[in-house]
């Protein structure tokens, strides 16, 4: 506290020498000391000098009591929507759905692809918004989540629900009319699972983690179904990878949040059974290694993928092993951070090594496809060549 005062003093000394009488500088400084003091003791800023405005456009709003919902809602609408939808999480979800679409053994149609991606994103935004609506008092308890929009009173709960309703119906409509009913059904199921089963279950039993992993595994299925219109055995591959990925990701994240989770009443493995938590994380990195190898065997990807993915997955497994052995905050943080790199990298590798890229012409010419499949480790499947997509665009759409 004293240090802060000294810092303020030195800053004031630097600022204060601009055309003000000597007496004034001292007052400004004292005012600033008192204001910083006041702020720390939760009193309002009574004297706010204009020189303290750091950002050029927006004056800092350091009042104790603020309007709820926030008065500059219109200006920050985009920002609030991003926060309600948990934008980074939703982006990962959309990425996994796009990967599912791109991996499916059917022609790549840009419109359907875009609609599938946008639809999935909107459904994810709706689900996250409802989740935040339900968890306001719990989010307030934990330092990770206490700055959420509803906790801070920037929006009212009814706004969050309204946003969720709008995003959900638009997303569902896009998926149903723009992609296919199966994808829409999967999206709706996922939304219900996340908001009405996973969210309450977080406070009832550790089984919520397994359920949450299923929620994470559905978007690639949505993408796959969006492309082919059905769920083939190959769809399982990406789903299993995403399902298993959730465990090292979440278990590592929750490891350092144990005090907060315990006080807020969340039942997570990291608290109730730490040994299980680490075992499960390690176990599922093993599953990922196996699934990647199997995906080449199942011909979703080519043999090169098995080789290329091995270093990535082995390193992931190594980090999980360290976490299992050491069980400290450092190893858990490393595992969590790597998991954020591992998933996009793995999905990219899968796309690059996709077994076959299908065009509409190929569908008619099934003989050619069968011949390609006969060659065991064919190098035919490579990066999508521009002509493939261009051929799509020149085709007349029905």
């Amino acid at each position: 506290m004293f240090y802060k005062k000294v810092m303020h003093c030195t800053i004031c000394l630097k600022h204060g020498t601009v055309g003000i009488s000597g007496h004034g500088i001292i007052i400004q400084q004292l005012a600033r000391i008192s204001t910083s003091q006041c702020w720390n003791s939760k009193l309002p800023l009574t004297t706010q000098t204009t020189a303290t405005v750091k950002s050029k456009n927006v004056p800092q709003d350091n009042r104790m009591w603020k309007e709820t919902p926030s008065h500059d809602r219109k200006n920050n609408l985009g920002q609030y929507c991003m926060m309600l939808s948990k934008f980074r999480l939703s982006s990962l979800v959309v990425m996994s759905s796009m990967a599912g679409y791109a991996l499916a053994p059917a022609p790549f149609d840009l419109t359907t692809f875009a609609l599938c991606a946008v639809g999935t994103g909107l459904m994810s935004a709706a689900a996250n918004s409802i989740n935040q609506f339900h968890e306001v008092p719990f989010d307030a308890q934990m330092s990770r989540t206490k700055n959420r929009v509803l906790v801070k009173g920037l929006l009212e709960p009814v706004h969050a629900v309204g946003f969720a309703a709008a995003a959900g119906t638009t997303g569902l409509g896009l998926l149903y009319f723009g992609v296919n009913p199966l994808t829409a059904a999967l999206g709706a199921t996922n939304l219900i699972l996340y908001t009405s089963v996973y969210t309450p279950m977080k406070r009832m039993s550790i089984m919520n983690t397994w359920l949450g992993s299923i929620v994470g595994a559905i978007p690639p299925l949505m993408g796959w179904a969006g492309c082919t219109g059905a769920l083939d055995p190959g769809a399982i591959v990406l789903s299993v990878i995403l399902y298993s990925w959730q465990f090292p990701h979440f278990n590592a994240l929750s490891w350092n949040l144990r005090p907060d989770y315990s006080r807020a009443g969340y039942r997570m493995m990291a608290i109730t059974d730490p040994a299980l938590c680490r075992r499960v994380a390690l176990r599922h990195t093993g599953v990922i290694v196996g699934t990647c190898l199997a995906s080449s065997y199942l011909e979703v990807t080519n043999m090169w993928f098995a080789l290329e993915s091995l270093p990535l997955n082995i390193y992931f497994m190594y980090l999980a092993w360290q976490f299992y052995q050491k069980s400290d905050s450092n190893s858990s943080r490393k595992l969590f951070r790597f998991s954020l790199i591992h998933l996009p990298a793995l999905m990219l590798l899968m796309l690059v090594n996709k077994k076959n890229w299908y065009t509409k012409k190929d569908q008619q010419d099934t003989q050619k496809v069968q011949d390609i499949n006969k060659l065991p480790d064919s190098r035919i499947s490579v990066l999508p060549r521009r002509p493939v997509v261009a051929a799509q665009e020149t085709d007349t759409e029905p």
Partner: protein
Amino acid sequence: MISNRIYKLNIHRQCYLVTRHTSTTKDTKSIQPPNPKRISSDMVGPPDPVSNLRTVIFKEPPNESQLEKRYRQMRSEVQEWNHKFWAQHNSRFYQEREEYVKTHTPADKQNLSADEMSVFYKAFLDKNWKLHINYNMEWYKKNFALLSLAIRVKVRKLLRLKK
């Protein structure tokens, strides 16, 4: 620590320092929660140090309808109920944690490791499971009731505006 407030009074471009102990000025009034009858919109305050929840002061407009009044009162009740629960719960948590650390820290160490603390966290969670389940059910019920009232109030406002 400076516990008094320092005011700047500008009189003919001369500055005087005035220290005050009492809270009768306009500035001190803003430390108190705002007056519900005078504010133009609901106001949200800082998080409470014990319950971590922010208090909202609801505006009481003079021409409030029955529905709006019910909504406001319900919000107030739920807020109070929430605050009471979490204040009690959190203080119990910190108290029990203190006791646990005191009884379990050996003489030569300063504090317990994360793994040792996790025994306490698990015990606390298990002990409060029933309490949490009941709170959750109550909270969901109240939250949905508030939501339905909120929707009705907003719809009515919208219709009134259109007229």
